[in-house]
């Protein structure tokens, strides 16, 4: 082969692909499609009866979390039933593994697609149950517009994609 033919082959390839559409998505203005299983900030479902957190304070999420992100403080009523005083979630330590959601036996913790976690204060990353409900409901409202991207793949029956 004559010298330079390899370089010419590369140049030819370059010419062939010049008309192609760029793959870049200009992020702050445009968002690419987020897949259904995307693991964003963990949200909390509101209990229809009490209007508060669905959490029953079993503490499984606390146990399952590999990074000590979650803290559940519970107290007992006079009749011996348990209630959640305070549910704390430290987003700054969270690695978004979703082991807590897998562990939750009452479906309280929920997947959201919220990944804009920016704050100007580290204390803003320590959120409580009410804030998690807010995040979840905000995400559910946004999900309507996202529905078209989900596709039939989401219909797959497994214990993660439920309800």
């Amino acid at each position, binding site marked *: 082969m004559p010298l330079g033919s390899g370089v010419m082959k590369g140049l030819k390839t*370059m010419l062939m*692909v010049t008309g192609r559409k760029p793959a870049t998505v200009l992020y702050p203005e445009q968002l690419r499609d987020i897949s259904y299983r995307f693991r964003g900030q963990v949200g909390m479902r509101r209990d229809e009866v009490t209007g508060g957190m669905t959490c029953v304070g079993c503490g499984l999420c606390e146990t399952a979390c590999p990074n000590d992100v979650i803290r559940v403080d519970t107290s007992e009523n006079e009749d011996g039933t348990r209630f959640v005083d305070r549910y704390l979630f430290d987003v700054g330590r969270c690695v978004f593994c979703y082991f807590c959601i897998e562990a939750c036996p009452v479906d309280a913790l929920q997947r959201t697609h919220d990944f804009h976690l920016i704050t100007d204060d580290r204390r803003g990353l320590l959120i409580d149950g009410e804030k998690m409900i807010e995040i979840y409901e905000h995400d559910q409202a946004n999900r309507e517009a996202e529905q078209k991207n989900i596709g039939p793949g989401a219909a797959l029956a*497994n*214990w993660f994609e439920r309800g």
Partner: protein
Amino acid sequence: MTVVSGVADARMDLERGSGDNMILNMGPQHPSTHGVLRLVIELDGEEVRRCDADMGYLHRGVEKLLEVHDYRGGITLTDRMDYTSGPSNNMAYLMAIEKLMGITDDIPLRARYLRTAVAELSRLAAHHIWLGTHGLDIGAMSAFLWSLREREKILYLFEEACGARLTTSFMRVGGTGPHDVGDQWLDNVEAFLNGYTLDEIDALLTENEVFIERTRDVGLITQEQALSYGLTGPVIRGSGIAWDLRKAQPYAAYDLVDFEVPVFTEGDVYARYLVRLNEMYQSKRIIGQCVEALRDLPLDAPSNVDLPQVVPPDIGRVPVDMEAMINHFKLVMHGVQPPPGESYFGIENPKGELGFYFVSDGTGMPYRCHVRSPSFVNLSIIEEISVGSLIADVVAIIGSVDIVLGEVDR
């Protein structure tokens, strides 16, 4: 001044310099060291006289952390070692635990095929990072951009299957866990394979005279060196030794798919380039076969092993079924509990043999965990093969050995 060890002594001696030779610090911030590797190089003109690799800048104590997490929590740590191929690392970890528990043969076919497909996808992603940065080090800009574009598509497939792009925490002990896939994902994988443009990058680099000049007869590794250093992966296959764990000790579904192991005998940077490039074509073949096989399996085929002490029950049953609730709570609180004993299991990661060694004392956490990481072992050859080469070739050599510092330092 006390000397800490022979190694530190040699490095201080090197750093002090001798005679007219120049001491050059390459890294830890140098972009071509692919992370935080520091090379102390003694230069005579442009020729390397001595080279000393200094690592440990990214040490996070993963082995110790694995010992204080339960077996499930450890999954999140493994994809942070070789962060270019997270799912593959997860699978090495999970399969080592499965071997420790003695359930390797019980893993359902669906999980085995999916693991194979995902491991090969992550091999493609990792090799695209290598191909791009290796080309970039040598001066090929387009290959880098095109490589990362293809890799981005693979990361999107990971996101669709498990929810994250890099820190995947893919699958669980005993099968796919919550990350089973449907036809939609398989369609997307097929669409990706159909539009896959490795040929274009191939056309840019493989016959390019500038690229060949920079890589041929550079960084020669002989067969003896490769064996005595314990190299694995594409580095040893570029030196003419056909050692691939996918063929030598088939795991997952590698004994059910048809593929070849590319071997080149030259032992130089170009040979290692060709090995990886051909591996990518083979990976594409394997993924195609796995997708076909997954399509042929019925949708209700099990994707997790049917053992209540390993796989949690269907979460819908937990609030209504007492046994399911006890099972679920037991599994979350105590995790899987392998019997006392020890085991080692290695898989063919993109970089080479990634092995996990566990000692279990019967509790939910490993008593001792050791990681045999391919990058760490392969890194050791750099000190020897860069001697006598030009300083500009050191960049090509580092690129061809393909290390990830997150895995070297762990």
